[in-house]
């Protein structure tokens, strides 16, 4: 009995130690994000990224949170400051993981932040680049549901702008949803497919 208590105690102690600082940090950052504490979450991802200079995920999430929190900003100074920071971290992520489709589509997402803010000013140079990014991501990962959904959403935006039907993209979104259900993620903290969001986009499409 005593022996087993000892074993359990040791197991707990080492078990806690086995969960690395990295895992703890990342989990905490995700939980802050879920609680809507965007600043704290982004800052924790930022600290992890600085402490783990060879990992792409913390930098990727720092950028993602900054981009998400930039949407809807009315002040160009604040927007530019946020997206400049996001760009800096996306560059770190890219340096650590080349030709990563997740990073490519996040870059496209960042560009969208600028275009959505002032299409006339930023659209001319950035919309072409964004097209290129989706094309490249699709080439690398033709069955990645996030890439397919992002690309379909981007094309829907363009179609709406030109007063065209968004119908042709619905099937792509459905395909992304199917692939998302089947997808098995093997890398810890790897970006997940947001089923609920995809369903919403599908509603807008139809």
């Amino acid at each position, binding site marked *: 009995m*005593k022996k087993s*208590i*000892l074993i359990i*105690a*040791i197991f707990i*102690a080492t078990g806690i130690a086995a969960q690395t*600082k990295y895992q703890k*940090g990342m989990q905490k950052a995700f939980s802050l994000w879920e609680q809507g504490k965007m*600043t*704290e979450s982004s*800052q*924790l991802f*930022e*600290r*992890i990224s*600085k*402490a783990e200079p060879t990992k792409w995920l913390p930098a990727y999430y720092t950028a993602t949170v900054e981009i998400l929190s930039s949407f809807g900003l*009315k*002040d*160009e*100074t*604040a927007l*530019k*400051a*946020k997206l400049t*920071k996001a760009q800096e971290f996306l560059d770190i992520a890219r340096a650590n993981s080349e030709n990563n489709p997740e990073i490519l589509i996040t870059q496209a997402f960042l560009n969208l932040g600028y275009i959505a803010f002032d299409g*006339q*000013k*930023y659209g*001319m*140079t950035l*919309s*072409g*680049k964004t*097209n*290129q990014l989706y*094309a490249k991501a699709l080439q690398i990962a033709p069955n990645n549901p996030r890439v397919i959904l992002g690309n379909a959403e981007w*094309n829907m935006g*363009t179609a709406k702008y*030109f*007063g*065209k039907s968004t119908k042709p993209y619905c099937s792509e979104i459905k395909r992304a949803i199917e692939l998302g259900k089947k997808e098995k993620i093997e890398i810890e903290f790897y970006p997940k497919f947001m089923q609920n969001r995809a369903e919403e986009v599908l509603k807008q499409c139809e």
Partner: protein
Amino acid sequence: MKRILFLLLTISQISLFAQTTISGKVTDSKNIPIEGANVYLDGTYDGSSTNEKGEFSFLTSEKGNQTIVISYISFETFIKTANITSLKNLKVKLREDVNSLDAVVINAGTFEAGEKAKVTVLKPLDIVTTASALGDVMGALQTLPGTSTVDEDGRLFVRGGEAEETQIFIDGMRVFTPYAPAARNIPTRGRFSPFLFKGISFSTGGYSAEYGQALSSVLQLNTIDEPIEEKTDLSFMTLGLGVGNTQIWGSNSFSINASYINLAPYQEAFPDRNTWNKPVQSLSGEMVYRHKFKNESLLKLYGAFNYTTFDLIQEDINFENGFQFGLKNRNLYFNASYKNKFENNWRLETGLSFTNDYSDVNIFDDTVLDNENSMHVKLKLRKRFSNRFKLSFGSEYFITNFNEDYISNTNNLYEFDFDNNIFASFVETDIFFSKSLAAKVGLRLENSELLNQFTVSPRISVAHKISNNSQFSLAYGQFYQNPKNDYLKFNQNFKAENTSHLIANYQATKQGQIFRIEAYLKDYNNLVKFDGNTATFSSNYNNNGNGYAKGFDVFWRQNRKIKNTDYWVSYSYLDTERDYRNYPTAATPSFASKHNLSLVAKHWVESWKSQLGFTYNFASGRNYTNPNEIGFLNNKTKNYNSLSVNWAYLIDQQKILYFSVNNVLGTQNVFGYNYKNTPEPNGNFNRQAIIPNTDRFFFVGFFWTISNNKNTNQLDNL
């Protein structure tokens, strides 16, 4: 056994006790707490955010010397290395980041276009969507304040200066012959296609010491660094055809475009007031090659070729059978530029440009052959000591060889030739005292070999941010320019012409709107004077001319406050007099008008998939000399009015149909009067109004983009 458990627990307790607390308070320079700053020990997971009082506190088990980092958006990051035990109750003042978008901008005199600009006055798209501009950079800039409408000429006349007082640069290198040739009373256009440029900076005074040989204005055009995708563009226009292609491979890209313009069909359909012996025909092409090296440095080669011919007879009161003018012009421009960043924040920019311009002009039976070879080489270094202090310096050399052969109808040959070489050096500093106070101080030295003259031009500008949305700036500078080729070919015993600029600017910006007002005073000295009716080889020349120009410019632009509508208004007030050329007395020159007003509006109609635009231009009357009355430049023409409209229709995402009409109301504008050389028997001189060749100008074009990506179109090109 229990002991072991106890031990395990105490160890974890001890490790807690061994932790150090890092704490402090973060404020801005005015002691206002900063909430949400990120505070952490570099390379560790330990850190926290500041609370609403700017305070932070966290535990760390790190030992010894550690680096604390405090970062917050729009502020410079604070970094300090010290022993962990001393990082307690820190009082940190973060310095504002002077690079942020809301920092003060040194902008007296300058309008910026392009996404890099902090305050954008024109957007890249505007060049090609402004109704009156017809896709010409110069045309679009003429809707900005500080410019005068001189519709029979088409070049840029800035703040009481002649067109030659504006210099144009592509990627920092001088363009010696920027305008396409045109006959009298027909407006000229810039030689380059606007699609190749990503940024434009148009300075109407007080510009940087980097630029010289310009008395009034400097226009900088920057070509695109990296094209986005491979594509082919086709254009079918009422005036001609165009084709363009872009290729990208690895870190290289190549763009080429060619166009053929022939005005014969248009002149057949809409005859103008001239008799065309040969219609305007022009063949032109441009090429850009870009290479990005592994170290991110960039090499750009740009070449442009143009060949234009025409021959016409214009009505002229002094020539019974009209005034015959024929021209063949060949122009070659080449420009190479290279920029690189080095360690320790050094930056190098260097380049070379070369121009060959050859014209064969026939005026009745006289022939004038002009040949100009010009070159510009430049090297510039820039060192960033910090965000707040930057130094740049460099040298450049301009070489011009001009040769003219004048063959008279009696077959006599007169030859004029000169070399105009200038060496210049410049040094300039950018100093940010704070986010709201900045200065630029520079000095330019020039040595002209032809005039054997050494000049010193100081330049200074200061900008101060008064509130979140507004700023005030001042600029002063001295500017020198050698007399223009028209004089130098006959006489070289000159001094450089000189002007000084004093400028005060107020600017207020908000999202989607910008207001600016700028007052200026220009003092001209050493202007060229000559005797006789026109400048000829037998005229007597001197440098005793002088003049002044003063006034103010107002600009207002609002974007999308009215749904789908973008508009701007420019107004310029100009008071100028000059005693130069063959003027008997100081007078307002015939190209200057006191009031200039432009109104440009664009409206997107979703249901029509169309952009509709209009431009209205107004200029008050300009001086002319009426020999039937006493005095010089003693009369004024009536006011100038012109309304232009355009309509761009998106057939689909890759096809666009474009219509435009300049001066749609057909207003009868008069630029001046041409008087008969000899009086009638009653002593009166008869006159002829100088009017446009045609009252309205129509343009229809179809633009088609072919690329793998179905989303791009030439909307950008309109």
